[in-house]
């Protein structure tokens, strides 16, 4: 045997008040004011979104960018950026502009295939192009302008060609003349980046 429903005005009002009060309390609790530090962090995130909207990763005979390609892929995945990898084959002035350079092009294929593998591993789409140009720096600047890139990412100067300058003339020229941001990954003295001092030594400096 079961009793009938007992819907009363008082019961209805109390029921509504309970549901509204609990809901409002939880909502208020989960929306605390943002702190100054959080606002700074939000601004930085917004800036990053703008910064990495369209990324070009540059490879060439004298610029090794594989490690920066991995970084670019991670950035692109997080920010859903448009990612473009280019390999610039420099054609000497002693040859016509459309001269075939099979050895160089073979290296370019390897570099861009590796870039595609990195992109695939990170789950991002990548466009790749091999570009013939008289000067790497000018070609990169032209492509960046043409594609309205937000960020150019470059690796470090290829080992064995170090001439005493911290960056090659090509990299310096790109950094100095680009109309967008440029990120250059220069490897440390021992070729290791972002070493965790604490985990390596087990202590911190006083």
């Amino acid at each position: 045997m079961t009793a009938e429903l007992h819907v009363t005005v008082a019961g209805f009002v109390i029921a509504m008040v309970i549901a509204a009060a609990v809901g409002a309390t939880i909502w208020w609790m989960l929306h605390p004011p943002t702190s100054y530090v959080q606002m700074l962090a939000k601004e930085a995130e917004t800036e990053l979104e703008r910064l990495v909207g369209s990324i070009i990763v540059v490879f060439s005979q004298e610029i090794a960018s594989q490690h920066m390609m991995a970084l670019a892929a991670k950035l692109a995945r997080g920010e859903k950026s448009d990612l473009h990898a280019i390999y610039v084959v420099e054609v000497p002035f002693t040859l016509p502009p459309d001269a075939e350079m099979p050895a160089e092009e073979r290296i370019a294929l390897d570099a861009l295939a590796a870039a595609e593998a990195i992109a695939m591993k990170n789950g991002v789409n990548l466009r790749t192009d091999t570009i013939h140009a008289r000067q790497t720096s000018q070609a990169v600047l032209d492509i960046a302008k043409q594609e309205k890139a937000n960020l150019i990412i470059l690796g470090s100067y290829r080992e064995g060609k170090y001439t005493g300058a911290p960056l090659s003339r090509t990299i310096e020229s790109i950094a100095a003349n680009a109309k967008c941001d440029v990120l250059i990954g220069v490897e440390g003295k021992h070729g290791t980046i972002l070493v965790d001092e604490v985990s390596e030594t087990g202590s911190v400096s006083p």
Partner: protein
Amino acid sequence: MQKRQPELRRSVTPWGSFSWGYSDVGADIFVGLGLVLGAAAGASNVAFLFAGIVYVCIGLAYTELAATYPVAGGGQYFVMRGLGDLFGFIAGWAVLLDFTIDITLFAWSCVDYLSQLIPGFLNTTHPWTHFVVCLMLIAGLATLNVIGVRESTAFNSFVSALDVISETLILTLGFLFAFRPELLIHAMHTAWPSPFGLMNGISLAIISFVGLESISQAAQETQRPASIVPRTSVGLILTILIFALSYSNLALGMQPWHPQYDAHGHAIAFWQIFTNNADNQGKAIALLSAQIPYYGLLATLYVPLLGAVLLLISSNSGVFGSSRIAYAMSTEQLLPSIFRRVHASFRTPAISIIAFSGVAVLELIFAAIPYLIPAANVLYAHLFRGEGGLDFLADLYAFGAATSYSFVFIALIFLRLHDPLSPRNFKIPFNIPLTVRGERVEFPIVAVIGFLGIGSILVFTLITHVIGRIAGPLWLVFGVLIYLWYRKQKRLPLFHSQPKDWKQQQVEILRNAGELELMDQYLSRVRDAEARQGRVWE
């Protein structure tokens, strides 16, 4: 070169912080409702109202203190900072009692709720099974907490969300479909208890509100604690208050879906099924929800299970709380340093967790003996009026809570007067402005009201609970002896406090909490105050 000590991870989010408190306080009503209805009958809602007002004062005090001093010690730290090492130890030791009881009481109740679905877990008929399952639960939770707070926070968060939704649904549908105001008025009019019954009911009602300490305990691991903790504390206070007051009024004014009868076959009101019936008292929410028309069909199936899970995570927050407070007390040299040792891999205070879970097991054994060994009943009847099981645990729970909260109110008043410079992101309302030693301070009226309220509940507990009257003070004496022995071994002052640079400590607390704006504000205030006194603080 200075070796870096592993620190507690700051991984608790706003919902995680709420969940830690909710999993502790939210489960209390599952145990407390039936006990209060059994003790205070028609005045159960008044008992909850009285305890609820005191709870709001406690909650506001904890909110202000936890936001001002976001460290792991919670109440113990506030009392130590306000009243000195010895009182800090006593308050912390009382809180430790509550947390260890928390582990056992809710593991016990969890199995009671499960017995609704699995009759083999009934304590009265299968005491050994009940005992072994409780023991396994405690051991399992201790392991979970040793592994790490992030894992257990995720566990708590999910179940807390589920329970908030479920309890809101129970109350909303209960009032909508089964509430008759005239039954409530009739129950209050005809079944008003004796003064002893009301005092007993109020002292039991306060156990429905114990656990805000958990949020304070988690403050050191909460992101932006000075900003988040006030929100989560106030959110918790309001949610629990709404639930407790609603349940008690609904239970008294409920027209059950299925008519209820006493042992002689006479029809009785719903709330009367809890009078002198320990079995029903232990599963009040499950019984209430089952009597809501139509919804009761579903509630019968899931509420006992949800109750059991919530009680389990409440037990889990006891493991969490006891280990953290022991960690904090050890850091302040109130307990041996072994309790602050952090596990190198898991980065949790593993030794504290294991030690106080061990204490909880001892309490479980003490509570279960009358059921496991029938011959022990004579001894319990002689010493404790036959109280065992839930009664034993509830007595100690009420005693520990009332004792530590009393100290916290005094500490709050003292800190308002002696530490006015610390920025208070949240301040209890209703204050009297004063000038003490040249500084403007605000005397908290609410703390005085709260102290009188919790003081009266402590008196009610001592009057009406035999075990609370004997075992509670014994626990404190035992703790003070340990404290004195340890301090003597370490050649530290026994009855006085160690000198501490509170100002420097406050800067570090705020910096570690990530509350950089508050740190700047504090530094500025301190420098201004020092300048007024012609000194320079660096």
